[in-house]
């Protein structure tokens, strides 16, 4: 049984999972920054406080 496909599959799965793990909060952070920015700008333009 050739070992190479299994080695490639193993490292490939690991790479995919680590990328997913790393990218998730980065993307969420970017989305949050966008949402907060617009919310703050709204609050600044219509000051009630």
């Amino acid at each position, binding site marked *: *049984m*050739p*070992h*190479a496909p*299994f*080695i490639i*599959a*193993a*490292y490939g*799965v*690991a790479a995919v*999972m*680590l990328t*997913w*793990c*790393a990218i*998730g*909060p*980065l993307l*969420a*952070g970017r989305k*949050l*920054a966008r949402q*907060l*920015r617009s919310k*703050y700008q709204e609050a600044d333009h219509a000051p009630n406080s």
Partner: protein
Amino acid sequence: MNRVWLFFHKMGSPPWFYRFSGKLLPWLWGLFFVLAAWGLYLGLVKAPPDYLQGESARIMYIHVPAAWMSMLIYVLVAAMGLIGLVWHVRIAEIMAICSAPIGAFFTAIALATGSLWGRPTWGTYWVWDARLTSELVLLFLYLGVIALYNSFDEPRKAARAASLLALVGVVNLPIIHYSVTWWNTLHQGTSISASGSSIHPSMLWPLLIMAVATKFFYAANLLVRTRHRLLLQDHRKQWVRNVIMKEGS
């Protein structure tokens, strides 16, 4: 000693933590990539194939560090959770809960790579020996902690409940560690111990380098997740406003 205490006190303040971690992050990512590249080169290119197993033993250089991280992170979740529970340190609570998904990812990687290693080497994708089974149980423990955290509305209560669960679960970990000696298993016996190891240096070095590399990945990813959660929880506070507006310009 005073400098050290001052440092830890400052880290407890979210804006300070955010600023400090932001400076630290590029270094952590950089070290991860450099070490991972070096370790992978040594492991996939330079190291010899195993005498008994052949080429498939190269999977060890990702499987074993991932398994080590899966267990280390769980202990850290429990430890940071304990600090949060006993001393009410919010940053500790947040870092504990942010570590849990990272640990779950590493556990999944360990299971998947272990399974792919088993097929060409021992003929089977899965065997219910004590070691693999415990790794699967560890994954369920992680998922339980994450699920419990997500079930509560109030974030601090959620973090404390999840921390308590992690502390209870950490009792399971010694059983994982000693299961290799308790039962005869298909899994390879422990070959790295404090007294020295039975692995040839050309295979030991890539393993250790990858082990250190994964720690830098964990540190970097943890800081990213913690920063995100801090922004989320403190979004009404001025410091978050300052950060967001500054980063936008």
